């Protein structure tokens, strides 16, 4: 019986939704709310859904602020691929300037020293947060644009 169930779950086809927003920070919330809705279909807890939302927001904002340098009227595309028994994959695509550093160079979370204000950084935490919270991240850049992949295992 268990092998039948396992076989059935393996047959579940991944589902995908693609979202497009204009490159303005006010619109990131639209992606955030849509991703929360998809996450609600999974076994993720409320805290885990909050964390997925945070990661998506950080990467979309990164595309707007860095790839497009804050220019509006560009497109940020977000693919959300759900295999309910296995994983949630979110891909944030832009056609702006690629990230200059490899992800590993940005991934270290700096720990502030309460006695040293020089260590109280007011920026640069977005990608380290994503690295910390997602099971896998990957960044690809080619002539057609850039793609930031985030994968969260389920179940």
């Amino acid at each position, binding site marked *: 019986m268990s092998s039948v169930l396992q076989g059935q779950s393996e047959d579940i086809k991944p589902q995908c939704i693609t979202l497009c927003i204009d490159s303005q*920070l006010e619109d990131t919330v639209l992606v955030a709310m849509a991703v929360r809705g998809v996450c609600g279909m999974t076994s993720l807890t409320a805290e885990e859904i909050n964390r997925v939302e945070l990661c998506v927001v*950080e990467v979309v904002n990164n595309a707007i*602020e860095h790839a497009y340098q804050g220019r509006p009227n560009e497109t940020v595309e977000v693919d959300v691929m759900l295999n309910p028994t296995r994983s949630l994959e979110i891909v944030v695509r832009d056609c702006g300037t690629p990230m200059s550093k490899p992800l590993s160079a940005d991934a270290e979370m700096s720990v502030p020293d309460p006695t040293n204000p020089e260590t*109280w950084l007011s920026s640069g935490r*977005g990608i380290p947060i994503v690295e910390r919270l997602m099971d896998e991240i990957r960044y690809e850049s080619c002539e057609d644009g850039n793609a930031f992949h985030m994968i969260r295992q389920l179940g």
Partner: protein
Amino acid sequence: MGYSNRQEADKTVVEIDEARLDASQATPFRDYMTDLISQGQRDLVLDLSQVDFMDSSGLGAIVGALKELNGDGSIQLAGPQKSVNDLFDLTCMDKIFTIHSSVNDALSGGIQ
């Protein structure tokens, strides 16, 4: 919607009447805090109870305001929801800020 402040004892309580303190709100929030600090308000309590989402830019705006005090004053946080608390914990910024369960606790010195 937006920000407001009031004097409570010797502190300035800043109420954030926004559900999201994110990148789109970071600049107006930072400007509001800069105005308060330049007016001489140096012991601030941020009422975060209405904020259900904060990203690294919102966090950065709060850190920027703290640095603006340049050691002469304080920013205490009050009433953060779970997701906001989680962000401070993840980024270890809970080492920098004193976090209270409510504004009343902040004013009376209680810690979450």
